[in-house]
């Protein structure tokens, strides 16, 4: 049997099947014969297209609404305000995890120091030596009371204190002091900087908008200034400013923040 035989045999397909297939083809291609029918078809089509448009619009609007709702829900649940907020949260988490062991170490060191002093005092034979010690203690006490007064008074710029310079961080800290590395090495005292708008911008930039970089990859240069930040609970955090406009926090090891050179100059200006 050849393909031609098969084709010829297909010619024997029943008339009804052929007519049926023809009918289906015609009905799918048929055009409305009368004007009325044409109008009806046109109306139906336009109704369908308007319906489709409305449907499409509704779907888009609904899906947009759902996305926005989910976004707001997620924002609310996560408590996201802005990027600096997130950074602060991360920083404070790291602080608390680092601060606890540090506090324990400090307490142990203090205890050891105290006991050593006690032993030294007991072992002291000379009355002069003990009186000298008392004098120096008194001098230190006087000095520290002055610093405390300074801290309490702060520097005022209108109603703003040095802590206001911290920007977003000011809720966490109650005191801000600043000292150059050189002065600290020479036993100089810390300063409470006067509030200035430039100072606030520079410090805020430094603490919240800087770009975090692993310390090993950053050419920070020499440390130039220390900024001491005291928390409500008395914890003191030290921030170190470097000559190449980097900032690091002692309680966040291994990370430095790059700030702009202009901001760095503003920080430096706090000493003038």
């Amino acid at each position, binding site marked *: 049997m050849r393909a031609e035989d098969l084709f010829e045999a297909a*010619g024997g397909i029943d008339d009804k099947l052929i007519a049926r297939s023809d009918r289906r083809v015609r009905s799918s291609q048929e055009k409305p014969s009368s004007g009325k029918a044409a109008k009806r078809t046109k109306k139906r089509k336009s109704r369908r297209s308007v319906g489709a448009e409305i449907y499409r619009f509704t779907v888009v609007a609904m899906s947009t609404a759902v996305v926005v709702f989910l976004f707001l829900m997620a924002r609310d649940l996560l408590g996201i305000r802005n990027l600096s907020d997130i950074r602060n949260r991360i920083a404070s988490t790291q602080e608390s995890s680092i601060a606890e062991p540090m506090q324990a170490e400090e307490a142990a060191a203090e205890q050891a120091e105290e006991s050593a002093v006690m032993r030294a005092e007991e072992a002291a034979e000379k009355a002069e030596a003990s009186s000298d010690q008392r004098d120096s203690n008194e001098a230190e006490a006087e000095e520290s009371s002055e610093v405390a007064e300074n801290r309490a008074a702060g520097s005022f710029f209108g109603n703003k204190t040095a802590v206001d310079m911290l920007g977003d961080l000011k809720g966490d800290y109650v005191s801000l002091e600043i000292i150059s590395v050189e002065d600290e090495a020479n036993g100089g005292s810390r300063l409470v900087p006067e509030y200035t708008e430039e100072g606030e911008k520079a410090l805020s930039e430094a603490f919240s908008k800087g770009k975090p970089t692993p310390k090993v990859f950053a050419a920070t240069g020499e440390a130039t200034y220390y900024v001491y930040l005291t928390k409500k609970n008395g914890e003191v955090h030290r921030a170190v400013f470097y000559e190449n406009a980097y900032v690091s926090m002692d309680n966040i090891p291994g990370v430095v923040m790059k700030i702009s050179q202009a901001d760095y100059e503003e920080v430096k200006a706090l000493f003038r």
Partner: protein
Amino acid sequence: MEDTAIIDLYWKRDEQAIVETDQKYGKYCHTVAYNVLNDVEDSRECVNDTWLRAWNSMPPKRPSVLRAFLAKITRNLAFDRYRARSAAKRGSGTMEAVLDELAECADLSGNWNAEEACMAAELKEAINRFAEQLPARECDLFVRRYFFAEEIPAIARRYQMTENNVTVSLSRIRKKLRKYLKEGEFIE
């Protein structure tokens, strides 16, 4: 004019029957012939032959569907003409493609000679039954392709399918046909 009226004219041996048939189905039959022959002149001659054969068939025949009756005559005449024309060489075109496809279902190595030609009627019946048992859409595709020898893009347009979809469907139909013909022992 209604088909029944046209058939009545044939039965009355009124030559107006041919004029009416040509008016109503001339284009249609020309398309059927052109699908097979792919030649305008041959198709026109084929349509004229169709009117002659219809004239000779009615009476005694009284077709229930005149359109399909005429399509069948045209198609068979066109195929005869195609075979005569391409006895020397086979060209290329839709018809060749259709035959190539059907060759998948034919048993080329088998003997199908004059002695077994009596089986042709049985084969026609078998193919008719096969078409009848197909689902409506597949039956339509089968008829359009293997009765009318329509091109695949044309079939796709008619049924609002993609060409690929039509090709795949036809391939499945051919597989079914081959199985069916094997079961009927038309092929080995």
